Each structure stands twice: as structure tokens, then as C-alpha cells.
């Protein structure tokens, strides 16, 4: 496939601006996740690329082919874009069996029936459903239906595979396996893909690059590691992972570092946005980075253990320290002893 370029796409639905000028590029063979909460515009963006929704302005091009351009008025209908789309609901046609579902796109392309036969069985083999050709969708499990939906979308070698919340209809256990499987099949096919999801784990696991959307804008863009480990905005920091948040006042700024203080605590962390002394700010730290220790030290606050929840592989502790509530992950059962909460300064982000 050629490079997909989306520039300045804008869409309004009534009084609601769903997309406020989104631009990004997708390189050959790359998998991009459009991640965001509901209402962020991610599905609308995907549908605009597929040709099912039409933006009010902007430009979408695939290589030399302009799919949509509000200036020239170009608008390629969905059926001529040669893309594959996996629906959240799978949208398998209940009146067709697996073979006919997968073969549909091939038949539309007037491919001879022997070739159709061959390519459907290749697609079914790739997704591990050989021998299921004659089954109807309602005779398949949720996981199998999802695989058929993917086979149907890739059977005619589309230029680009679009996935709309592909795992959200699976139960939790199956989703974990499907995540790995999906990444594996995308790599195997060497296809470019865009995956819309509200599940950060899904985005991190599947994508080479994550676009974090919020209120119709791209909030941050980067590799999964960058997005998780180096959020640029407080939204990005809060959206990913599980966090402790501390609101206070900036009391000192030292280059890239700053000190933030509350009524009875004072901590040092990395300054993520411009702040001056005396300004209100929020400190964010991932739960798994928050530590406990037995003795006071640098960047520590005395905490009182309020509750401890057993979660099998680990414990979740809930501490109270003055007006702060802090969660910590631990491996051991709680003990009757004074705790000190340690916030490593390289992991404490000040917004």
C-alpha cells in the first residue's frame, strides 16, 4: 500500500464538533491505533477514511489517489476505495455461510470461481478456521465470528485494513488471547492497519504508533512506549494506566524539575508544562511507580493504611496521608507497621 495521509479533517454533527482538524500519516506496513474515550471522534475518523461518513472539510489521500478533498470536491464512494473494514459488531451476514461471507468481496471483483475458492481457503487458513466454510454465523462462537470478519476484510487484499473496536465484543479472557493473535496476524500479512479502540491495553499491544484523540483533536502521537512513559499533557497522563493524583502548589522551579507542595507534604518531580512558583498544579504518578518504605527519605510522605484489597497476583493498598489518598501495588500482605510512601522524582510528573 501507499502512504495514507489525512490532513485537517473537520466534521460537525449539529452543534457538536466531532473532529476539529485532524492530521496524521500512516506509513506502509504500519499499524496505528486511534485511541480515545467515547466521543473523542475516533470512530468518525475511521468512518471518514472508509468513506462511510463524509467530513465537512479536509483531505484524505492514499498514495496518489485522493479519496476525499473538500477543496476539489473529490469524493470516492466507499465501495471504490478498496479498503477492508472489521466492524465492532462484526456485521457478518446471517443469510450467508462463512465461505460466502468471505468470498463476497472477491466475487464483486469478478474473480474466477476457482481463484475465489483458493483465496477464501487461504484467508480461512490464515485465521485458523479451515473446515468451517459451511457454517453460518450464528453457529460460530464470538471469537470465531471475529476471525471470519477479519478474513472477509482481508480476502481481497485491501490496501488498508481498518478495525473498529475489534475486541470489544469478546469477553475479558478471550480478549487477552485475541490481542496477541491480532498483532500476530497483522504482522504475518504485512498489511497496514488502523485500529480504533478505547482500550489502552489494546492500543499498546497492537499498534506501532498510537494517536491519542480527545474532543476531536489529536492530543498526542507516538510509539506505545512514548505515550505511556512520556505523556505530554495531563489528559494523556490520566487517560493511560492507573494513577495517583496530587493537587498542590508549585513552590520551586529548578530547570526541568520542580517542587510541589500541599498542606503537609512537599515533593519533587519532573515539570511537564510551564509553571511558575505559586501556581496551582497537579502531580501525577503511575500506581505501579508509587512505592512504600519503612523509613522516611527523599520524596516521602507518611501514610496511614486505610484498606488493602487482595487481587490474586498482587495486593492493592489504599493509603491516607493528610488530604491525599494514594493507591500502591504491593506483592505482600499488609503488616501492622508505619508506612512511608515514596514517590520517585523521575516518575512524578507535574502538570
Amino acid at each position, binding site marked *: 500500500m501507499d502512504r495514507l495521509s489525512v490532513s485537517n479533517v473537520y466534521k460537525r454533527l449539529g452543534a457538536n464538533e466531532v473532529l476539529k482538524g485532524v492530521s496524521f500519516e500512516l506509513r506502509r506496513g504500519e499499524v496505528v491505533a486511534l485511541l480515545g474515550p467515547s466521543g473523542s471522534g475516533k470512530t468518525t475518523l475511521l468512518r471518514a477514511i*472508509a468513506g462511510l461518513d463524509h467530513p465537512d472539510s479536509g483531505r484524505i489521500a492514499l498514495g496518489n489517489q485522493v479519496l476525499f478533498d473538500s477543496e476539489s470536491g473529490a469524493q470516492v464512494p466507499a465501495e471504490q476505495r478498496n479498503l477492508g473494514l472489521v466492524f465492532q459488531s462484526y*456485521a457478518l451476514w446471517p443469510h450467508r455461510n462463512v465461505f460466502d461471507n468471505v468470498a463476497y468481496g472477491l466475487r464483486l471483483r469478478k474473480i474466477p470461481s476457482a481463484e475465489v475458492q483458493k483465496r477464501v481457503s487461504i484467508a480461512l487458513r490464515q485465521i485458523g478456521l479451515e473446515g468451517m466454510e459451511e457454517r453460518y454465523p450464528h453457529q460460530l462462537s464470538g471469537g470465531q465470528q471475529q476471525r471470519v470478519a477479519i478474513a472477509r*476484510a482481508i480476502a481481497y487484499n485491501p490496501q488498508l485494513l481498518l478495525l473498529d473496536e475489534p475486541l470489544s465484543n469478546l469477553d475479558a479472557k478471550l480478549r487477552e488471547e485475541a490481542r496477541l493473535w491480532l498483532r500476530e496476524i497483522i504482522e504475518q500479512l504485512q498489511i497496514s492497519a488502523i485500529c480504533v479502540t478505547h482500550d489502552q491495553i489494546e492500543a499498546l499491544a497492537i499498534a506501532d504508533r498510537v494517536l491519542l484523540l480527545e474532543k476531536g483533536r489529536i492530543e498526542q502521537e507516538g510509539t506505545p512506549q512514548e505515550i505511556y512513559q512520556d505523556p505530554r499533557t495531563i489528559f494523556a497522563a490520566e487517560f493511560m494506566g492507573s494513577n495517583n493524583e496530587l493537587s498542590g502548589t508549585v513552590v520551586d522551579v529548578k530547570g526541568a524539575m520542580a517542587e510541589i507542595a500541599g498542606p503537609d507534604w512537599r515533593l519533587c518531580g519532573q515539570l511537564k508544562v510551564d509553571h511558575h512558583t505559586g501556581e496551582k498544579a497537579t502531580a501525577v504518578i503511575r500506581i505501579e511507580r508509587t512505592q512504600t518504605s519503612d523509613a522516611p527519605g527523599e520524596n516521602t510522605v507518611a501514610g496511614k493504611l486505610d484498606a488493602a484489597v487482595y487481587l490474586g497476583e498482587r495486593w492493592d493498598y489504599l493509603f491516607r496521608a493528610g488530604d491525599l489518598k494514594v493507591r500502591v501495588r504491593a506483592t505482600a500482605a499488609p503488616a501492622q507497621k508505619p508506612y512511608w510512601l515514596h514517590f520517585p522524582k523521575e516518575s512524578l510528573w507535574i502538570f
Partner: protein
Amino acid sequence: MRGLRLYRVLVVLITASAVLLPLGIVLYQSVLDAPFFQPSAKLSTSAFSFVFSDPDFHRAFATTALVAVGMTLIAVPLGSILAFLLIRTDLPGRRVLEPVVLIPIFLSPVVLAFGYVVAAGPVGFFTLWFKEAFGLAPWNVYSLASLIVIAGLTHIPYVFLYTSSALRALGADLEEAARVAGAGAARVAFSVSLPMVRPAILYSAVLVFFLGFELFGLPLILGDPGGLLVLSTYLYKLTNRLGVPSYQLMAVVAVAIIAIAFPLVYLQRRLIGASARFVTVGGKGLSPRPLRLSGWRWPALALVLVWLAATVLLPLSGVFLRAFVSSWGEGIRLAQVITLENFRELFDYPNLVRGILNTLGIATFGGALAVAWYALIGLANHRWQSGWSRVLDYLVMVPRGMPGLVAGLAFLWVFLFVRPLSPLRSTLFSVWLAYSVVWLAYGMRLISSALLQVSPDLEEAGLTVGASRGQVLRQVTIPLIRFGLIGSWLLVFMIFVREYSTGVYLLGPGTEVVGSLIVSLWATGAIDIVAALAVVNVLLVAAGMGFALRLGVRLHG
């Protein structure tokens, strides 16, 4: 508890006698050798031998079958496509068109047929104007082909009705999946949307085929001049065939019609369940995202408008034009003959004035009474865990197998046969009872769709706080279906105004209604008065429809 049970049993008994008595009397009369009121009447199969050996009967049967098949072949494909265009695509003006395409259902077929005759008949308005412009008018409304085409076009709304409600429930994602895979709009329709609603299409095909056997107004007016008889018009003509009342022969024809209708009604009942089941298999995401037709938008709209012009505008404009001219024929200019005389003339005949008032009364008050009766049946049957409930279910389906003409005849006999009822024969009560029974199945569908809106939780909540079943019905269920009942009343109003065949045999001094007056006046050739009455009929229906749309009543019940 006991009161509720008594009420339910009473409802079953009254409904059973209203439904089974006319059916029974037709069956009984068919095996007699003379009218049942003659003391000499004996059991015999002679009437059957007479009718079944009559070549006219065979011709009528063959014509009916041909018309039913032909109109099904026309109405089903076009109706399905119409439903797809209006429900699933971005056809311009589809919101406005949706109620408009249902109009032919509420127009009386005699009015429509009359409209076709005066608009496009041998000396119709458009025929003469066309001749003037092009020298010839190469069509004949009195041919079998015309009858089939007109019947087919005017029955498209029935197909639309059922196919559209199935299409509405179809997930948009299933069509979008086809779109992305490379299918254009037409391809999506034929390979995904319409196959997905196949059970609904099949149901509507059986329905239209069934309605083909019931046709009366269209063949009466369009078929007669060309000597075309169908079963219902054959039955109608039998009345004065032998000079003496040939009730036994009429009963045999009625039995023949019923014998064809019943299996079709049963088939419909089986199919309607399946049509609802199939759709729920579809994808989710009910947000109505219309399929883009792009370049096909305007040609598709043109197609819909052409159909509307042919089935609504053409006949109605004929009726209205004819009602406002004193005479019409070759060489007459419209401007010279325009008059209001036809309407003034209506008032010269007391029976016509009575007919209009009777129609209004039977539609307004009779309609309300009928809805009340349907509601009593519906409520009796509501959450009734009993075998009787099933009996009631089947009972209300029975009249579906009796076309209006047959039911009207049967009720005439009921009022002659059952002595205590005879004084009521020449009152509007007889017409009302016949109407209410003929439309029982239709009315019950309206009531049960209103009752379906009431969540069982709401009623169970009433029971758990200590109300009896009867109290829950009166204090929870009825208030909740109030709006549904008003909507049903408006729909029944329109249906009762439109009705024409049921009153034909009951027509007499005191029981005149516009529909049956048109039928009987048509035979006398009083075209001016028929046109004026037809306009009155259309305006009454339009008033009901305007009111219903204003209140937001869904015309599909």
C-alpha cells in the same frame, strides 16, 4: 379474580358468536337446495354441482388466479425496492414520502377504479387530451392487463408496509460491510438488505396474493365492460342471475372464496412470526445511517414519483375533475362545463345525504365502539395464561378469511335467520357489526401493538404492591395504552370510511353508506353523483389521515 374470569369468558363467548355465526350460516346455506328461509329447503349438494359446472365460474376462478399472480409479481419487487429506497437510502424527501406512499391503502378501491375510468378510460380526461396532442391513445383500462397492472401498482403499499418495518430493524453495519467490500447501492440492496428481510417479503407476497382473491372494487368497475369476471364479481352478479334469490349458489361461491382464503390466512400467520425472528439476527447499531445513492438519488426519486403519479395523482385528479364538470366527452372544453351542480344534486336525494351522515357516524362513533370492543378482547387476552387465550387468538383471525363482500352477505343472513336480531337488520347496527367483524383481525393487531408497549414490569409492580389483576388492568394497563387506542380509533375511522364491499348486501333504506352507494349507483350509470360521492369519500379519508399525522399516529399501526 372471579370478576376478571367472568369478563374473560364473556368476551370469548361474544366474540365467538359474532365470528362463527356468519361463517356457520354460509356453510349451512351452501348445503341446502333453496334459500334457508323457505320451508321446503332440504340438505343437498345440488348448489355445489351447479356452480362447479358453470363455465363462468371456472373462467372467473382462472381470471382471479391470473390477477392474483400478476399483481403479486408486480407489487412485490416494486414494493421491496420502494421500501429499500425510502428506509435505507438518502433518497431526497424520503421523510415526506413515507406517509404519502401509504395513501393508496386508505383509498377505496371503487374510488380508485372509478378514477382510472374517468381519467384514462376511453373518454377519460387524459385519454382525450393525449389523443388531441398525439393523435391516438394506445391503452384500454378495461383489459385484463390493465386490471393486473392497476391492482399491482395499488397494492405496492402493502409490500412496502411489511418490508419497510423489517428493513428498519436491520443493522446499518451489515450494509456498510458490503459497501466497504466493494458493492454499490443497488448491489447492497439485492445481495444484503433485501435477502436479509426475505421472510417479510415472502409474507407480503402471500398477503398480496391473498388480497388478489378478495379484489372487488377494481374488477367490478374495470372488468365489467370487458366481460371480465373474478370470483367476487361473479358472486355479486349471481344475485340477479336466476331471478329468484339464489342464496344457495351465492353461499357456494362464498364457501369457495373462504376455502381459498383460509389456508392463505394460516400461512400468513405462520410467516409473520418468522419474519420478526429473522431480523433480530442482524447486526447491532440501529443508528439510521442512510446508504448514499450518489448519482442514483434523482433517478430513484423520479421512479417513486412516477409511481405515485400513476396510483394516486392520476385516479384522484380524474375523480376531482369529473366531480366538478357537468358532462365530459370528445370535443368538450373543460372551461365550458365546470360546475358545482353535482354536489348540490347530492342534497336532492335524502338517501345520499343519509349515506354521508351514516358514513360519518359509523366511522366516528362506530369506529370508537369497534376499538372499544377490540380493546376489551385485547385486555381479556392480555397476559392470560390459559388455553382459551389461544382459542381467542384463532377466533380473531377467522374473519380475515371472509372478504368484506362475503361477510356482508353472511351478516345479512344472520339478521334474517336469527329472529331476535331481524328488527336490527335495517338499522346501522347491522352495518356496524359487519364492519367490526370484518376488521377484527386488523383492529386486534393495532391493540396488541399498543399492549406490547407496556412492559410487564410495570404491571408486576402493581401486583406486588397489592393490586388485583383486574385493578392492574384498569389502573395501570389502560392508562398506559390510551394514546395507542386513540391512534387505533383514527386508523379504524379511515378504514370504515373507505369500506365499501361489506355494506353492499346490507344496503337498504337506513343503512346507506358512501362506499356501498357508489357501488350500487355505478351500476345505474349515475356518473355525476358517483363522482361527487367519491370526492366526499376521499375528503373524509383525508381529514382522518391529516388528523392522524398531526397527532403523530403511525399509519402502519
